C-alpha cells in the first residue's frame, strides 16, 4: 500500500464514524494468535516516542501508527511475524471475526483512549482482513464516547462506534466469586474478539486502572465493585469466560497518563508519557504500568500508592492460584522497551 493510499484510508477511517462508505477489505492470510503459555514469562512491550506529538500538543496519526506497528511486532518477535506489521496482526485475528475495541472514555476527552490510536488499530485490522462493519469501537455510554471525541456510528458497512446503552445488557447474570453482573451485548453478541484499549491512570480506589479494570465498562453494575480497593472484584470479573475467551490483546494508551487524582481527568496531575504498553497478559501489563506510575509519582515528590494506603492489590489477586489470569511477579515479566 502506498503512502498516499494509507493517508486516504486513514482519512476515510476518520470519517467512518460519520457514515462514509466502506472500502472493501483486501484478502489477508489467515493466522491465529497464540495465547501465552502457562508458566512462561509474560512479555510486555513499552513503546515510547518522544516526538509522538511532533511540534504540537496532539498525537500525530502517522507516528502513533508507526509506534503501534513497532510495538505489536516486538510483542510477537519480529522475526517470526514477517517483515510487515500485518504479519503480527494476522497472528491475532482472522477474516470473518468480529472485533471489539473496548476503549476507555469515562475520564473525558483529556484522558480517554486516544482517537488516533484507535484509528491506527482499525487501519491494521482492516488490512488484516476484518471488514469495517465487523469492527466495533465501544464503551459503556455513547454520550461519554462522544464527549471523548468519538463520533457514533451504527449499522451499515462502516466501522461501528457506540455504547452499551444502544445495545443493552444480557438478561441473565454472569457470575464468578464475588461478581454477578449482566454483560454488555456488544461483548456477547456483536463481537467475538476483544481488543482491550485502556488508558494508563491512577485510580483513587483501586490504586491504578488499566487493562483489568477497563472491564468494569463491560458490566451493568460496576459501582458495586469499588469497596476494598476493588479487590477481589476486578480479578473475579476478569475470570468470566465471556471476557477471558475473547480478550486477545491489550493496547494500553499511555500517550497521556495520570499519576494521581484519577480516574477523572485533572490536567495538572497528568503527563505526556507518549507511550504504548502492549501485552497479551493483562496482569503483567497492569503490573508494568503500576511501576511507571510509581516512577512518575516519585519524580513528582508524591508518596507511593502503598504509603497512601491504596496499593493495587487486585493485581496480585489476579495472579494468585485461584485466578491465574497472568503474571504479577516482575521476575516472570519480560519487559521490552522500545
Amino acid at each position, binding site marked *: 500500500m502506498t503512502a498516499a493510499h494509507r493517508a486516504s484510508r486513514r482519512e476515510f477511517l476518520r470519517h467512518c464514524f460519520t457514515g462514509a462508505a466502506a472500502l472493501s477489505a483486501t484478502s489477508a492470510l489467515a493466522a491465529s494468535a497464540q495465547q501465552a503459555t502457562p508458566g512462561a514469562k509474560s512479555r510486555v512491550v513499552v513503546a515510547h516516542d518522544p516526538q509522538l506529538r511532533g511540534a504540537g500538543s496532539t498525537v500525530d496519526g502517522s507516528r502513533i501508527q508507526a509506534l503501534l506497528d513497532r510495538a505489536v511486532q516486538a510483542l510477537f518477535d519480529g522475526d517470526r511475524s514477517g517483515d510487515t506489521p500485518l504479519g503480527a496482526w494476522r497472528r491475532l485475528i482472522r477474516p470473518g471475526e468480529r472485533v471489539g475495541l473496548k476503549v476507555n472514555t*469515562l*475520564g*473525558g476527552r483529556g484522558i480517554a483512549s486516544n482517537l488516533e490510536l484507535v484509528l491506527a488499530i482499525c487501519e491494521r485490522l482492516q488490512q488484516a482482513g476484518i471488514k469495517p462493519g465487523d469492527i466495533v469501537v465501544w464503551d459503556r*455510554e*455513547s454520550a461519554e464516547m462522544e464527549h471523548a471525541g468519538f463520533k457514533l456510528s*451504527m*449499522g451499515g458497512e462502516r466501522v461501528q462506534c457506540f455504547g452499551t*446503552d*444502544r*445495545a*443493552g*445488557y444480557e*438478561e441473565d*447474570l454472569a*457470575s464468578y466469586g464475588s461478581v*454477578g453482573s*449482566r454483560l454488555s*451485548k456488544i461483548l456477547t453478541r456483536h463481537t467475538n474478539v476483544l481488543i482491550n484499549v485502556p488508558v494508563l491512570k491512577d485510580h*483513587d480506589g483501586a490504586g491504578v486502572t488499566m487493562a483489568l479494570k477497563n472491564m468494569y465498562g463491560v458490566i*451493568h*453494575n460496576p*459501582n*458495586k465493585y*469499588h*469497596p476494598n480497593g476493588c479487590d477481589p472484584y476486578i480479578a473475579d470479573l476478569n475470570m468470566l469466560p465471556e471476557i477471558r475467551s475473547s480478550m486477545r490483546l491489550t493496547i494500553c494508551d499511555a500517550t497521556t497518563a495520570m499519576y494521581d*487524582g*484519577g*480516574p*477523572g481527568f*485533572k490536567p495538572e496531575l497528568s503527563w505526556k508519557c507518549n507511550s504504548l504498553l502492549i501485552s497479551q497478559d493483562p496482569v503483567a501489563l497492569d503490573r508494568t504500568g503500576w511501576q511507571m506510575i510509581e516512577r512518575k509519582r516519585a519524580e513528582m515528590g508524591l508518596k507511593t500508592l502503598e504509603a497512601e494506603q491504596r496499593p493495587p492489590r487486585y493485581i496480585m489477586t489476579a495472579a494468585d492460584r485461584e485466578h491465574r489470569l497472568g503474571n504479577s511477579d516482575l521476575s516472570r515479566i519480560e519487559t521490552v522497551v522500545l
Partner: protein
Amino acid sequence: MLCELVARQDEMSQASRTVSAPLDRRSFMMCALASGAALGAGEFAAPATASPSALSSMGQQTQSDAQFAVEARFYEKLANRKIKCKLCPRECNVGDKERGYCGVRENRGGVYYTLVHSRVCAAHIDPIEKKPLFHYLPGTVAFSIATAGCNVNCKFCQNWDISQSRPEQIPADFAPPQRIAAIAKQNNCPTIAYTYSEPVVFSEFLMDTADAGHQAGVRSIVVSNGYMQQDALKQAYGKMDAVKIDLKSFSESYYAKVVTGQLKPVLDTLVTLRTMGKWTEIVYLVVPTLNDSDTEFRGLAQWIKANLGPDVPLHFTQFHPEYLLKNLPITPVPTLERAKAIADAEGLHYVYIGNVPGHPAQNTYCPQCRKLLVERTGFTANSLLIRKDGTCPNCKHLIPGIWHV
C-alpha cells in the same frame, strides 16, 4: 405505568376503606384483587416496563437524566473535587465523574447529585400486608413506588433487576412528588409506600414526596434495610408514619458476606426509630443454612426485647431462590416455625411467619387472652376485630399499632 394507575381510580375506590368490623364481601374482593398474583411472593417489584431489553433496540436513545438530577443532601465536599457521601455508613469517597456504591448518586465537578429524584421505575397499588405491615391500617392499600438503586447487594434480592441497576438502564417515568401524592389520592390510597429497591438511596425524593403527601392528606411508609447514617435517618424517616426494616440477620459476618453491609448501623437505626416514636416492624428473611441457627434467632429476639420492647412485630419470612442464591432451597416451614417458637419463648408478643399463605402465624392474636384479632390469608386481611381505641374486644388489652385512619 402511572397513567394506568390513574385510570383504575373507580375500580379501586372501595379497596382503601378501613374497617373496624369484619370486611364485607366487596372490600374483601378488592383487597384480593390488589394482592393479585403476588400471593406468597413477597415484595416483588414487577415494574411495568423494567426489562432492560426495552433499551436494546439499536439506535434507541437512552433517557436524559437532566430532569432527574437534583443536588443531593447529606454529603461533604472534599479537596480535588471529591466528595464524601454522608447518607449511609459506607461514606463513599467519590471522585469527579464517579458514582457512589448505590449507583444513583454522582459527583459532577465536586457537586453530588441524586440521579433519581422523581425517577420512578416501579409503581403499584399493593395491599399494606404485602410490605409486610401488619399493625398499620390493615385492609388498606398503599401506592408503592421505587427508583433504581440500593446501597447493599444482598445475594438473595428479589428485586435485583432494579435495585442493582443504574437508573439509565431501566425505563422510568418522571413523577414529581405532587404527582405521586395526587395519584395516591385519586386511587384512594391512604398511604404512599417507598419500597421494592432501597429507599435510603432516594431519600431526597422520599422526603419531598412525603411532604407533598402529607399536604394532600396521604401518609407515608418506608420499607428499608435501615442501613443509613443517623442524621439522614432522622431527617428522612422522621417524615414517615411507619417503617418496616429488613433485618437481614443477627450476624456481622452474614452482613459482610451475603449483604455487603454491616449489622450494627441497622441495629442503631432500630433504636433511633424507637426513640423517635416511629411505628416499626421488622422482617427477618430466613435463608436456609446461612442465617437459620437457633443461636441467631435467640440472640435476635433477646436483643429486640431488651432494646425495642416486646411489642415490636417481628416477621420471619420464607426465602425463595433468586439472584445469586439460586442454589439454595426454599425455607422449610418447620424452620420458620422454629424461629417463631424461639422468639415467642423469649417473650416477643407479635411474631409472624411470612410468605406462607394460609399459615395461622399470619394472624394477629391478643398476647393476653389469645383472641384472634386480625385474620389474614396471604396479603388479605379478612377481618379486623380491634376496637377503635386499639384494644382487644375481649380483654381490653392495648394492641400496639396504627389500626384506623
